């Protein structure tokens, strides 16, 4: 199974955490951060990223601002107060899920 598929399930937590760590980011910067952060092992496509960003925006967790950069309009996303709180909650949930998964993977039946 490709790691991308596992990451996609936690995409909103990943986006929120990246924004929490880096302040504001634009779409392409987020895809690059995921790629570089995972040393090229994980990629998120635009098809997955933008719907996720818009959903977070609709949920009132993100704020956007636009700026002219290098002759084109760039849209930056950043967390608001509600987003920062949600980011911590989602990070806790993600870490708990990872820890549970590790325990499950190591589990052996006592009489097995």
């Amino acid at each position, binding site marked *: 199974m490709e790691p991308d598929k596992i990451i996609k399930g936690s995409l909103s937590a990943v986006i929120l955490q990246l924004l929490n760590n880096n302040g504001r980011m*634009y*779409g*392409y910067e987020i895809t690059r951060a995921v790629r570089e952060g995972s040393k090229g092992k994980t990629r998120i*496509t*635009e*098809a997955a990223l*933008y*719907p996720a*960003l*818009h959903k977070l*925006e*609709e949920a009132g967790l993100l704020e956007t601002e*636009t700026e*002219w*950069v*290098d*002759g*084109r*309009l*760039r*849209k930056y996303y950043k967390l608001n107060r509600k987003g920062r709180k949600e980011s911590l909650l989602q990070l806790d949930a993600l870490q708990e899920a990872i820890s549970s998964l590790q325990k499950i993977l190591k589990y052996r039946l006592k009489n097995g």
Partner: protein
Amino acid sequence: MDKRILTADELAALRQFIISRSARFAEPAILLEIMDHFACKTEEILQAEPGLSLDMAMKKAHHAFGVKGFAPLAEACEKAIFSRYRHWYRQELRNVWCSLHVLGFGLLGLLAAQLCLLAEKLAWLGEHGIYLILFVEFVYAICLYPILVKAGYGKKHRIFYNKALSISNGRLSWLRIGSMLIIITDSDRLAPWMVAATVGLLTFSLGLNLRILFQLLRKADRDADTTEAQLASLG
């Protein structure tokens, strides 16, 4: 090594490339959303392979978007605009309910109901005349949306107007069903006051809806102006 930044001419070529993929991407709001991401990707490819032509870099960048190309991005952008207008509709609905407009439309509804009763009493409109009024309101509720869309409200920035109209139109569905049920019911089964009350309620609801629609269309005007200014700056 200096970061490769696309020139104005190259950005214009990118713009043409995006538009050439689908007429849907020519919509300025969508074009602006795709443009920066596509430009960043093309710049990265050109940075990694400086000898590559712009055409090839654009093709490679487009390929990296996946089999659906720019479509998911455009879809996400459209959904975001729709959600924004739906949020505004709810906000405007609350505003109208807290304003004097509700009183005005209430009086208009009462007047329509009274006229209906009077028409029934004096047999102005014949035996089934009241149903004619209901039918007119029903047709209005059905036709408003397609007529406004066909009139090309906001020809250049259709996306904003279409979303505003679509939300407003969606809210009239229950009215259509209600009035249709009354129209198809046999007139003998309903008391005149029930028909008059329905006409009054319909007039009130359509009035409120129309008021909110105009507020939404004004927001769409502002969105269109902002996008137009951004597009003009793009060159």
